[in-house]
């Protein structure tokens, strides 16, 4: 039996995911619009005082990014599960972890990366001091892949439930807490010109840990959901 080589299958899956993302671009824009709306609402809600906004900016931007990323997680495996694609993938003999990784990479590229790219604009809206902006971008660049990787585990666990969305957020939010604390403390430290490399370093180690372990956990969760 000739099984397709892993890199070719990985590339085929990424290619399909980008094509699907392009066809469903309205669905993709929703989390980003949500992010922009939340950030716009804050100055209206807490008052437009520049000092206050600058103080809460790192936390607000990060929480909004976190919520936006969870919004798109529920659909990560759902359509593949419902139309039988997932079971065909499992039977194809490809490693399920590889499939999970491909889906997660695609998810980050279409849902996480735009958040990183939008972050300078969000920082400006929230009046984040200039010293904090590069660190905010760095923290999001390191942190959003972790959101996708950990979120994929939750998405895989809840894929067989009819309405798994709420459960999914309950499952993954606790796991996001260390990331949120480290990221906001790094940005706040940078604003007052304190060292912040420690926090970013810890986040990076989290990224490496998630990158090596999360696909296997996602694969196990998918297997569980399929049986």
């Amino acid at each position: 039996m000739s099984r397709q080589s892993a890199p070719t299958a990985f590339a085929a899956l990424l290619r399909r995911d980008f094509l699907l993302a392009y066809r469903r671009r309205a669905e993709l824009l929703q989390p980003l619009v949500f992010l922009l709306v939340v950030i716009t609402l804050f100055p209206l809600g807490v008052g437009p005082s520049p000092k206050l906004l600058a103080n809460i900016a790192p936390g607000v931007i990060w929480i909004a990014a976190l919520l936006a990323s969870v919004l798109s997680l529920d659909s990560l495996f759902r359509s593949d599960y419902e139309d039988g694609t997932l079971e065909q993938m499992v039977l194809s003999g490809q490693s399920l972890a590889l499939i999970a990784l491909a889906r997660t990479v695609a998810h980050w590229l279409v849902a996480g990366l735009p958040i990183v790219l939008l972050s300078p604009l969000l920082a400006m809206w929230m009046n984040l001091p200039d010293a904090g902006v590069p660190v905010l971008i760095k923290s999001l660049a390191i942190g959003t892949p972790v959101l996708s990787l950990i979120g994929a585990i939750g998405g895989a666990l809840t894929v067989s439930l009819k309405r798994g969305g709420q459960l999914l957020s309950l499952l993954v939010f606790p796991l996001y807490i260390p990331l949120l604390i480290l990221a906001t403390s790094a940005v706040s430290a940078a604003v007052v010109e304190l060292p912040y490399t420690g926090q970013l370093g810890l986040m990076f180690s989290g990224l490496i840990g998630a990158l090596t372990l999360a696909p296997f956990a996602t694969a196990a969760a998918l297997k569980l959901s399929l049986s």
Partner: protein
Amino acid sequence: MPINSHMLSISGLSFERYFERVFEPVSFDLAAGSLLLVTGANGCGKTTLLRLLAGLLEPSEGEIHCPQQALYAGHNPAIKDDLSVEENIRFWMRFMGTRKSNPGNGLCQQIIEEIGLAPVALQEGRTLSAGQRKRCSLARLLFCDEALWLLDEPYSNLDHEGIVMLDRILRAHLDAGGACVMTTHGSLRPEGFDLQECHMQSGRHHYAGAAA
């Protein structure tokens, strides 16, 4: 295609769901070049049996001896609504690999012609009828090289031409030394094949009204 005299052999196979057998234990052997027809009423566990054979479920009792990965075509067609017929088939060819080491553009076109979807090749999956979906999902039979096929109600939704087409594909597969397990609930059966039959019995106790 590898030719093994024994493609599949199962003995005393059963599956429990919620502490109740889905079907009574089943045993059979399947040799290369043969077709096994699994019959039985709705809900008697035919799909569960195929999912067990495919390896999607773990058996509760009995053994499955299946030397190679089988090709499973279930009720879910694995077709993306947002991709065209051609894009769907092309994705699966890239993802699963094909019999030919280097499939050109030609192979995909040829497969689309063969399953009779050429007129709708560029239409999105969502616009297909149930029969066209079935045909599209059967495209896998033409490029995968698994020797054992597990087909779950392959005739459902197919028109007469589709049934003739499927029989032709199946005949070629069996002649090449492949084997196939197919389920059917009765009305449609493969014509003119030398086949084994396995009749399944539901393991569930019949509902006998409220307990007195």
